[in-house]
């Protein structure tokens, strides 16, 4: 995974995307017990196109030129299937903007903060997101004030109360 992250760092440095951070199950795994997943979810800020549409095509073209293969929704980068997820709403933009700098082995990378990952789970709302929120509550050191602020601003308080009371 270290080489995968080095490729992501290179893509960011070259301006192929504006900024990236690890999210999804591998983001959650940073804060809680290891979670089974088969892809690495990478949230990316894409450069604006003339039409204003978000497109992964230029990013895929660069990766294909470098010999990486598309596998379903992912691109296999150095042995790890990576799913690129463009940020498309205010919560994801904020989460990416405030993502935490860290290292994997010796390689710098970024991971979405626990409080944003909880909020994204609430917004996404699948059964597995509900389980993941429970894990965050039980195992992660959540900053309650920060979480409350995020949930209030993004209209997720009611869902949070519903999920943790059940």
């Amino acid at each position, binding site marked *: 995974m270290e080489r995968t992250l080095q490729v992501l760092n290179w893509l960011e440095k070259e301006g192929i995307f504006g900024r990236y951070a690890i999210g999804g199950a591998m983001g959650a795994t940073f804060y809680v017990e*290891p979670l*089974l997943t088969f892809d690495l979810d990478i949230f990316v800020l894409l450069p604006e196109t003339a039409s204003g549409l978000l497109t992964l095509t230029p990013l895929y073209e660069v990766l294909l030129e470098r010999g990486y293969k598309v596998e379903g929704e992912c691109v296999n980068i150095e*042995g790890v299937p990576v799913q690129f997820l463009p940020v498309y709403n205010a919560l994801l933009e904020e989460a990416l903007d405030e993502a935490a700098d860290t290292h994997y082995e010796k390689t710098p990378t970024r991971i979405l903060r626990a409080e944003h990952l909880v909020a994204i789970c609430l917004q996404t709302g699948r059964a597995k997101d509900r389980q993941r929120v429970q894990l965050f509550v039980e195992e992660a050191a959540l900053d309650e004030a920060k979480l409350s602020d995020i949930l209030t601003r993004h209209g997720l308080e009611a869902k949070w109360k519903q999920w943790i009371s059940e």
Partner: protein
Amino acid sequence: MEAMDQRVNPEITRLLNAKTERRQQLAALSYAEKVRIVVQLQSMAAPILRRRGKAAVVWNLENEVEG
């Protein structure tokens, strides 16, 4: 019945507490150690998923950067 509960409940409580403690220990591991565990989980789950017709690629960490 009450006598049986008194015997069983402390044992169940001990097991549940041990499970919680184990999960907290796992949560406290370094990210790199957790990634290695995820790959072990993938190795265990992939054959089952493939038999169900689902694509499941186990990550290749063998070409990690050498220190």
